[in-house]
């Protein structure tokens, strides 16, 4: 009896050692480059940077939340997400449903829709500029006279130009996720619906969408996260100080890096991290909830 327990303990120890061996390179790197410094970031966000390095607790956060540039950047980022995310979800679902129908040339279409994801943004911003400049092609096509032209990139319209670029780049990716979700729907269910004479729209809303709900949520969160990264597109199109509604959180971070204001940077990073953790927790909760619903 005792011997068996000793052996079990021995096995457990060996497993633990082996698992640690395999995990340690990654864990060490993550610790050094992400966890440890993030601890310091939290520390920086709580202290007074200028002289004493004394704890000021929430003073840095209070200052940040009163900073007009941060608020503008936060508002713009949220506005962008509010426009881009619903469009991304609906359009990519639409594309996936179309490619699921029996139409010729499906695999070609899939390749075309997915191709933008493999094209570096830096490579296509030139064409985007040709299309949307004040003297650009879109104004030309719309037949707008010189006076009535819209300066797409330098006015409040610019956010929609970036939404377009965001959709162009991301729709294919999300479409693949939806196609994978669609292929997981039990075929028998749809066959039964066919036998019973259910309409296409009933099949879509009552069966497919119900089974797709975890994918819908996943794509929603993923596109929300991707929309926080849209700085890249904005920067390449319009540079460091964009006009109108395109001043994003990452712009704020970049410009704060330049002034070496660690307290401000750290507080902003901590706030962003907290928002993300809340979003991710929400995602997990909802996934749990819907997963049970479908399985049960």
């Amino acid at each position, binding site marked *: 009896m005792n011997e068996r327990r000793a052996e079990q303990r021995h096995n457990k120890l060996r497993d633990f050692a082996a698992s640690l061996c395999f995990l340690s390179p990654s864990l060490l790197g993550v610790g050094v480059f992400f966890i440890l410094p993030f601890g310091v970031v939290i520390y920086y966000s709580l202290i007074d940077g200028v002289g004493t390095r004394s704890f000021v607790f929430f003073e840095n956060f209070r200052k940040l939340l009163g900073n007009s540039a941060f608020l503008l950047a936060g508002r713009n980022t949220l506005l962008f997400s509010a426009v881009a995310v619903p469009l991304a979800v609906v359009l990519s679902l639409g594309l996936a449903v179309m490619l699921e129908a029996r*139409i010729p040339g499906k695999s070609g279409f899939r390749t075309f*829709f997915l191709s933008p994801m493999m094209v570096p943004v830096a490579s296509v911003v030139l064409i985007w500029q040709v299309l949307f*400049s004040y003297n650009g092609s879109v104004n030309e096509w719309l037949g707008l006279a010189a006076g009535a032209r819209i300066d797409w990139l330098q006015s409040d319209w610019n956010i929609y130009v970036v939404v377009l670029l965001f959709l162009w780049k991301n729709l294919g990716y999300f479409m693949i996720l939806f196609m994978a979700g669609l292929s997981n729907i039990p075929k028998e269910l749809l066959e039964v619906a066919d036998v019973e004479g259910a309409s296409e729209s009933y099949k879509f809303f009552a069966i497919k969408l119900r089974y797709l709900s975890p994918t819908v949520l996943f794509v929603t969160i993923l596109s929300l996260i991707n929309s926080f990264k849209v700085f890249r597109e904005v920067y390449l199109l319009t540079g460091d100080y964009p006009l109108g509604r395109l001043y994003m959180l990452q712009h704020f971070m970049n410009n704060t890096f330049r002034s070496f204001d660690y307290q401000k940077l750290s507080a902003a990073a901590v706030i962003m991290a907290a928002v993300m953790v809340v979003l991710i927790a929400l995602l997990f909760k909802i996934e749990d909830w819907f997963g049970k619903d479908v399985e049960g």
Partner: protein
Amino acid sequence: MKKKRLFSRGVMFLLCLVFSVLFLLPTVLTITNSFMSESEIRANYGMIFSASGGGFVSEHVNLKFIPDRVTLSQYVSGLIKSPNYLVKYWNSILLVLPIVIFQVAIASVAAYSFTRWRGKVRDGIFFFYVILMLMPYQVTLVPNFLVSQWLGIINTPWSIILPGVFAPFSVFLLTKFMRRIPYSLIEAAKVDGADEWQIFTKICLPECRAALYSIAILVFIDYWNMVEQPLILLKDADSQPLSVFLSNINSGEIGLAFAMATVYMIPSLLLFLHGEEYLVEGIATQGSVKG
């Protein structure tokens, strides 16, 4: 009923055609325009970029698919006459290749650990990796910047390569792939007396070959496209990758920019054409964030 279905299929086909044109247009235009001479570019797009220097500038912008005269002159001046672009291109390669290779290598070992041994603590660590993976640059760049300063590698490629090598994305995705390997395979090897390293190299890695390729593609495209990290971590203009430098081209060299933009997308487009099936598999596997 049948007629109606045929009609809706026709509408879908047309819609797909329209979307295909929209999706392909920017890429195709960039490529075709790269074969225009500088004077043709100036004539067509002079209105937009207000190029310095003389020559004929059309009053309207002329978006053209096919150049009047196909020429490789932009490629010649970009790749042979001035070393600037080649240097940036080389910078990109030197940054991205080590990240892809080592991120996948380290991730494969870590993924094996997450696959082989489960438990509260280990699943907790995995969960933490997922959260880290989802963090935007606004969060991760500040820690990266601090560490790079401490280690004295700021403004060197290492400040991008090292955090890239340890980025948790590959660990997450590869774990999802590895957990699909039937447990009986591992069990059988154990019975035959294989140790963990042998199980990993002789069974897990060969089983995951396709997965490794698809992850490598995803990591490659992510870093080939990077902008945020070099902007913060590489102040020196000479060490910037082409993905950042392309946007800094001055307005007199638009033709050149088209050519270099095309050259820059070639590696990722080739990867795409070769590995589309793997890429699709890799994306589809991300289907949910849970392990």
